[in-house]
């Protein structure tokens, strides 16, 4: 969507209409209020001093018998225009100072950055008060003081934004071409940092309005006989026991005007940043839920019985994700499988094939916005309910005892703020009824078992003091605190070096052989999977296309075209060196018909085939409903 269309869309929301109304009113009052009510607001009536609200004076009169409401309206012009002038001056000089380090470069640039950083440390109001010492006490002086106080903050924002753009390729290209620096800054840098600067300017204007009122309130801004809201507040507070309205009405005006600028920033932010999250509308969600509930009471067919020795089994697993406001994407579509005791089952498929989603839905760790359902599921002889949008409660007591998980990225899967040892020991405290000392001893034993050297000392270290391979082994150690009959491993070796990968695979194989622990091993690396696993599930676009033993796979007895294509991409010792590596072309389609999510289709919802991995990782932000974090300019402003 273009900026203009996004702006229109943003203005059509209730908030947008409110913003439009508020901005229009403020603009009108700023331009015309003194002309309309100025004279009547200045009339002093000694017979009407400090009157309570009446028909004639809606909010009463002040200590000189002047109408409070009319004065407040008339004061809009001075209050708003001074704030806007301060904002324009502050923002322009801030942008200039923020861009100077790039233009000047070298030592001068660094000095300016250092100066900005010191200036930022001091709060704006303090700077404004300090500068009003030199500038004197008048409206112009206060405007200048606020503009100066705004400068470091805005300078830093500009500098940070510009510096992040500065490293981009097109800037480097322009520099190599010998374009003068100031021209690069004007033509390439400024347009790319303009949007966030605009959004912040709107919010800054609100801040300037409040600061200006503050200075006037202290008596350091507008002086009698002129008056703005701050000045009125100053006069009103001393008489608050007599005529509270004289202080409250201008006070409310300040709040409303401040809010108007915040709203403006919000709308600008929405218009200038690309579309963010849209959650599944409750209407679609209700239909999906109703459909699932129907399915549960009236199963479409009798699910195939579970094998006796299976540790984990599921029939007709489906995962759907919201897509746009009213659509649903099917990410996992009718997957059924069994994992036998002591078996290592690999799940392979390309990115987005739904292999990780399948694993996570079995573990009950899916994002709540995803919708999960299955005809039947069973773990260790116990039926599971795969609840949508949450953990399957029936699994809770297995975790840490009979089920364990290993995640893809050991760098991010351990809590950086806690000792590794205590994270390993946690399962013991939570599920195995150990006390702290027992849990600690058990954890050290498990750390030694996964070959963490000097486990006693390593127990008290933070994740960042561990290497990647050690972290993954610590994760496995945490899973081994109980006596798991199944380890769910989600690409546990993908983020690791090849040598470290081999260590982890050896460790998993050893656990499998010695303890008889079944492992469900998700990976996109078919070579790793065929060497480790006894059986392989091949997933393609959300469907299970093949369930094959490793032997058959290695012997080239795969039935499905996609599996064969996947195997062909694995280089062997006999692969000719000079030729390009085999690959599956992007446009290749092995699905051969079939359509979407049964629940979605039955609910009358348009079904779109989607990228499961994007739903799980890349677009997690979008799917997680964290609207505010990306689009709330106030928070962004504060985050600076």
């Amino acid at each position, binding site marked *: 969507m273009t900026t203009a269309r996004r702006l229109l869309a943003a203005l059509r929301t209730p908030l947008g209409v409110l913003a439009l109304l508020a901005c229009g009113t403020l603009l009108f009052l700023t331009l015309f209020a003194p002309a309309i009510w100025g004279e009547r607001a200045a009339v002093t009536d000694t017979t009407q001093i400090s009157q309570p609200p009446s028909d004639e004076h809606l909010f009463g009169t002040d200590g000189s018998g002047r109408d409070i409401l009319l004065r407040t309206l008339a004061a809009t012009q001075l209050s708003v225009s001074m704030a806007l002038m301060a904002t324009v001056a502050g923002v322009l000089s801030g942008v200039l100072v923020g861009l100077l380090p790039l233009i000047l470069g070298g030592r001068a640039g660094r000095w300016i950055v250092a100066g900005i950083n*010191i200036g930022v*440390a*001091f*709060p*704006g*109001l*303090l700077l404004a*008060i*300090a*500068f*009003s*010492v030199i500038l*004197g006490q008048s409206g112009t002086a206060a405007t200048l003081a606020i503009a100066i106080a705004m400068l470091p903050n805005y300078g830093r924002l500009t500098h940070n934004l510009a510096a992040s753009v500065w490293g981009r390729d097109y800037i480097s290209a322009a520099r190599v071409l010998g374009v003068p620096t100031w021209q690069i800054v004007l033509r390439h840098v400024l347009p790319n940092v303009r949007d966030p600067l605009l959004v912040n300017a709107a919010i800054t204007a609100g801040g300037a309005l*409040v600061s200006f009122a*503050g200075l006037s*309130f202290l*008596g350091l801004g507008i002086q009698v006989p002129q008056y703005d809201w701050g000045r009125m*507040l100053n006069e009103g*507070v001393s008489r*608050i*026991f007599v005529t509270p309205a004289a*202080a409250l009405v201008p*006070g409310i005006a300040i*709040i409303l005007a401040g809010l108007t600028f*915040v709203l403006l920033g919000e709308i600008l932010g929405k218009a200038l940043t690309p579309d963010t999250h849209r*959650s599944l509308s409750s209407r679609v969600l209700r239909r999906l839920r109703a459909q699932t509930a129907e399915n549960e009471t009236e199963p479409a067919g009798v699910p195939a019985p579970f094998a006796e020795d299976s540790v984990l089994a599921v029939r007709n697993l489906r995962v759907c994700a919201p897509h746009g406001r009213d659509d649903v994407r099917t990410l996992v579509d009718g997957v059924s499988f069994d994992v036998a005791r002591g078996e290592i089952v690999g799940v392979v498929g390309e990115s987005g094939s739904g292999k990780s989603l399948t694993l996570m839905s079995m573990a009950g*760790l899916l994002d709540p*916005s995803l919708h999960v359902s299955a005809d039947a599921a069973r773990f260790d002889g116990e039926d599971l309910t795969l609840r949508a949008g949450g*953990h399957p409660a029936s699994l809770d007591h297995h*975790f*840490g005892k009979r089920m364990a998980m290993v*995640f893809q990225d050991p760098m*991010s*899967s351990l*809590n*950086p*703020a*806690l000792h590794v040892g205590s*994270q390993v020991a*946690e*399962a013991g405290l*939570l*599920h195995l009824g150990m006390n702290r000392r027992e849990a600690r001893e058990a954890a050290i034993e498990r750390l030694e078992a*996964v*070959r963490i*050297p*000097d486990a006693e000392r*390593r127990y008290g270290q933070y994740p960042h003091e561990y290497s990647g391979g050690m972290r993954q082994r610590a994760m496995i150690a945490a899973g081994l605190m109980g006596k798991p009959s199944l380890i769910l491993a989600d690409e546990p070796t993908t983020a690791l070096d090849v040598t470290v990968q081999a260590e982890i695979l050896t460790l998993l194989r050893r656990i499998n052989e*010695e*303890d008889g622990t079944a492992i469900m091993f998700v990976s996109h690396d078919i070579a790793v999977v065929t060497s480790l696993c006894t059986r392989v599930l091949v997933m393609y676009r959300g469907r299970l296309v093949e369930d094959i033993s490793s032997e058959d796979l290695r012997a080239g007895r795969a039935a499905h075209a996609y599996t064969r294509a996947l195997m062909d991409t694995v280089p062997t010792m006999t692969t000719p060196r000079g030729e390009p590596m085999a690959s599956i072309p992007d446009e290749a389609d092995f699905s051969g018909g079939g359509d979407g999510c049964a629940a979605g289709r039955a609910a009358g919802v348009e079904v779109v085939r989607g990228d499961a991995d994007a739903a799980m990782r890349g677009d*997690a*932000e979008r799917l*997680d*409903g*964290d609207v*505010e*974090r990306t689009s*709330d300019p*106030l928070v962004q402003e504060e*985050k600076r």
Partner: protein
Amino acid sequence: MSVTPVSPAAGGTPAAAPGRTAFRAQNPWVSYLLRRGMYFVISLFVLVTVSFLLVQLIPGDPARISAGENAPPEVIEARRIQLGLDKPVIVQYLTFWVGLFTGDMGESITSRMPVLDVILSRAPATLELALAAVAIALVLAVCLGLFFGAITRGGRRHGVEVGFTSVSAIVAVIPEFLAGVILVYLFAVNMDILPVAGRSGLESYLLPVIALALGPTASLTRIVRAETLTVLQQDYVRTARAKRMPAVRLYGKHVLPNLLTSTLTISGLLLGSMIAGTVLVENIFAWPGLGGVIVESIQNQDYPLVQGIIIFYGALVLLINLIIDIVLILLDPRTALDTS
């Protein structure tokens, strides 16, 4: 557990000798503290220099202001020599520094009291007000932000989210001086249950502290909620969820520590602005701190006093930033030491 431990050489990186690690762990700390201390000193130097220059730039003749508008020329000259204003600027600047170190910040023009005495007698009231408000804002914001982040995670309770976002946005816009006026109206004028001004007894703290803490608490709560949502998306929270622990443990032990570092980093500016906010709040509640004095001395052009108070406020802000940075590396040595 039948998996047998094997010798470390087979599986992992050999451990470094304990002594060497201890040394390495200590080294970045020392250099970080030195660098941070250096920054503090430089900022302080800039602050003092700027405050000195401020007075040099005041329009008009300080000696005349000090001696009085209608003083005869010889009195003004005598005053000029007394204040050392006849000397070159650089000498005045050095004298100013010497004075700072010996506790001589000049004397107030209007009251003839030593500036240091004025600051020392007024500062406790300002400090109490500021510290109480900062503490309350931090504690409340972390609790509320974590709570609202937790219940609105993953797009849940859309109504609560909308309510929270709009209410907090409105409250965050209310500046401390307006909050003060509204509170005075509600509790002192309307209900007459709390003292309207002055500092006497515990209940007199209530309104000024609330007025000062209200807006920053709302802003900080929004930040904490946004940070909570960010932390909840991290892989290590999924790991923690996989362990199936009670919510209290999940949020208290796994989410909160990660939240504090980012929140504190962001909130430094906000806490600094609360120091400046005391000036406004003190003027509303006739609080016997430095806020009333600085406004009065600006209007009276009592420049030695203005200079001293500005240095006091500035140093206080710098000190708060220093404390936050030190707390940050105590909370999370990794980020602070890596990025510095």
